[in-house]
């Protein structure tokens, strides 16, 4: 079945499981249409592999529209590939040329062990969230929503931070494998809102402590995370978190 007329060479990381050693395998991707998404290109390659009795390439994906944060590929040395502000599932083959060689790897970070091929374990992010990424309010305790007035600029800024999809590209982009952008996005969102302010201090201390425990590296302000983040989460969040952290840490030592 032919779809289009691009022919590409893929060099894809294959790794059976977390304990085994991986290596690159080379595949031909033939008859690719520029309208396909990167994942649809993988579908075509996998279909060909299956019909010739070979093992398909395992990768994570679900929504295929840039919002679930599941897809996670390191393409030609960049998380989510060459295009700014999009996830792998939204990257289209028109961003490549006929004849290109494309190198695809999983996220690389000690805190994200490889499960198989391109799929990694990001449960460390869930544990960081469990450490403090919430407002402590039980169901049924809320008062009428419009009793809390929030200036529009604050609400907008909180929303922008809240747009993080938890994909982990920031970690993959960082030479220190730091998770600061992800953590600071949640810390900022909640610190910007009156509902979240009450617990702001504990939150930042707990989330940062968990982040360190998970083995993420330190932030040295290279800014690679912001540049590669598919949702353009801003570095300002890290600055805000650092301020929150310093104040909270100082106060907690008193």
């Amino acid at each position, binding site marked *: *079945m032919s*779809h289009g007329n691009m022919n590409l060479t893929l060099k894809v990381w294959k790794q*059976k*499981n977390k304990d085994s050693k991986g290596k690159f395998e080379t595949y031909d991707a033939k008859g690719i*249409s520029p*309208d*396909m998404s990167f994942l*649809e290109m993988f*579908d075509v390659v*996998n*279909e060909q*592999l*299956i*019909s010739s*009795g070979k093992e398909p390439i*395992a990768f994570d994906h*679900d*929504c295929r*529209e840039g919002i*679930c*944060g*599941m897809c996670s590929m390191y393409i030609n040395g960049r998380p989510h590939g060459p295009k700014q*502000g*999009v996830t792998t599932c*939204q990257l*289209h083959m*028109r961003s490549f040329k006929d004849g290109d060689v494309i190198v695809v790897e999983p996220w690389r970070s000690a805190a994200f062990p490889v*499960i*198989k091929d391109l*799929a990694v374990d990001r*449960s460390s*992010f*869930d544990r960081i969230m469990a450490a*403090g*990424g*919430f*407002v*402590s*309010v*039980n*169901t*049924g*305790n*809320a*008062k009428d*929503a419009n009793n*809390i*007035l*929030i200036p*529009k600029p604050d*609400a907008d800024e*909180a*929303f922008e931070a*809240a*747009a993080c*999809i*938890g994909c982990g590209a920031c970690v993959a982009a960082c030479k220190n494998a730091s998770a600061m952008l992800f953590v600071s996005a949640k810390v900022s969102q909640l610190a910007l*809102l009156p*509902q*979240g302010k009450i617990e702001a201090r504990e939150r930042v201390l707990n989330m940062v402590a968990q982040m360190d425990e998970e083995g993420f590296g330190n932030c040295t302000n290279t800014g690679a995370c912001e540049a590669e983040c598919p949702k353009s989460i801003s570095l300002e969040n890290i600055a805000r978190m650092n301020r929150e952290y310093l104040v909270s840490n100082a106060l907690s030592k008193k």
Partner: protein
Amino acid sequence: MASSPKLNSKIPEGTIENKWTKYRSTVHLVNPANKRSLEILVVGSGLAGASAAASLAEMGYKVKVFCFQDSPRRAHSIAAQGGVNAAKNYQNDGDSVYRLFYDTIKGGDYRAREANVHRLAEVSGNIIDQCVAQGVPFAREYGGTLSNRSFGGTQVQRTFYAAGQTGQQLLLGAYSALQRQVGMGAVKLLARHEMMEVVTIDGKARGIIARDLVSGKLERHFGHAVLLCTGGYGNVFYLSTNAMGSIVTAAWKAHKKGAFFGNPCYTQIHPTCIPVSGDHQSKLTLMSESLRNDGRIWVPKKKDDNRKAIDIPEEERDYYLERRYPAFGNLVPRDVASRAAKERCDAGYGVGTSKMAVYLDFAANTERYGKIEATKHNLHNPSKADIIKLGKEVVKEKYGNLFDMYKQITGEDPYEVPMRIYPAVHYTMGGLWVDYNLQTTVEGLYALGEANFSDHGANRLGASALMQGLADGYFVIPYTIGDYLSEEIRTKAIPTDNEAFVKAEKDVQDRIDKLFAIKGSKSVDHFHKRLGKIMWDKCGMARNKEGLTSAITEIQQLKAEFWKDVRVTGEANEFNPELEKAHRVADFIELGELMCKDALHRNESCGGHFREEFQTAEGEALRDDDNFAYVAAWEYKGDSSFELHKEELKFENIKLAQRNYA
């Protein structure tokens, strides 16, 4: 017509306004000490599952949550765009609980249960309060209050939103609440786990068999109650706006273990999606209904008009929704809008290369917004270019992410040219039949959110699925589950070496072995695509007796072929997406057959179910209330065999009427 004796909907006595209040104050409670020894399994972590799990854990129950993604935050709810309804009447435009109730019953073409829908409308306001308290950053006005917009099928503004990412923000709120309970040890989280079977003992649900998707191991989990919050099954059509993992497996396993399946054929086809562009496509992308607030839908008045949209003058455009339905215009319900688009395209007025698309045009409103902005900024005599520029900024703030998505996929810039759109499968109103308590026909087995047969009748109104998922999870199940669990406080945890668990696990293992043993020649996707095509052609936007009859035979043949010729690569005891898909597609094939049977038996048109034989002279859906004012609940009777049970729908508060949006 009387309801089948096998279906007790347990609707409380009393007037519609008082049923829920009275129920809540009389339902049996479980005391805190007993809650600690009652275990609840929640399958699914979308809005329904995450909100239920968090709330039940807060109440003191022991909860386990399962989802097949790597994190609960990735459930398909994350993709919802447009908004969530609530009868807050913040806009002072005449909204009320009754009006939301009425709109939902009418929008559903009078095929929903009044008592459930009224309860939904009653708790809708609490949802917004709860989400705001959690820090969900809804859109706001300059005065700091919450902002609203309009959705289809209503004449008030009751939709709360967070740009085009409402589902994301609501789910992250529920996920935060869930993770808080995980952190406190009240919830055990099992991500990358797929439920493969329900375990029943003496007719009650007592647990599940799950597959750890990383190690491939089968696991047994006991629960005093099992909640299926597993979402919809739109991917039975292969192409839909749903995430790849919107599957029926959990509901289907429950069905085969005795849970009746309600109205399986009710499918929502959403009018505004990016049209299919080629056979490589793995999914379709929705352009949120909120766009219909500001976009006008049209086709050329002339057949096969090949001019560019901008070259077609105003008087040669047919704004067919505004023409046919002046009262609601572009905001008619989805089923009506979808059929109208299909009608124009089938008649030869479609646009784009495939001619299977209509325009969604923002030019008029961009200009209108531009003028308002110019006035606000005290610009006198602004040029047209200035107006358009200002207008585009407003449009960008409202729909920026959707416009970007459109451009990314189609390569066209919707700020400059109208979008091309066409209907696509979006939501399944059908699902597991549940009573007022959200319990299925299997005791102790519940279904919440899109997985149940739902409050939306034969057509769901926009922004009502998020409302329903959160209503079920935050505000309904915490009460209704007490009715069952208060009787279970003496049931000790059942050891999972019980024979029912052993047998259920063996059944799953046998099926896995069987799938690997086939060693056929065709991929799982191959079968999925073929199933999708049969479903879309014959059980899609328009259905008829002949097509449905042949679809049933074709699906049976496809099933036989699948079990003879599918190829599943890899091994059982490893991370194996092909094996996961094989199970899911096998279930879809069986479901597809039931959907066609349900569609064939319902000799009427209602909402999303349009039988070509039953339409008015104007081409509107023609219901048959004398014979079909019931929920069709199907009982599984073995291979390809299903028995119909009917739950009569009584309309005591809203008069049955032909829907009219003109």
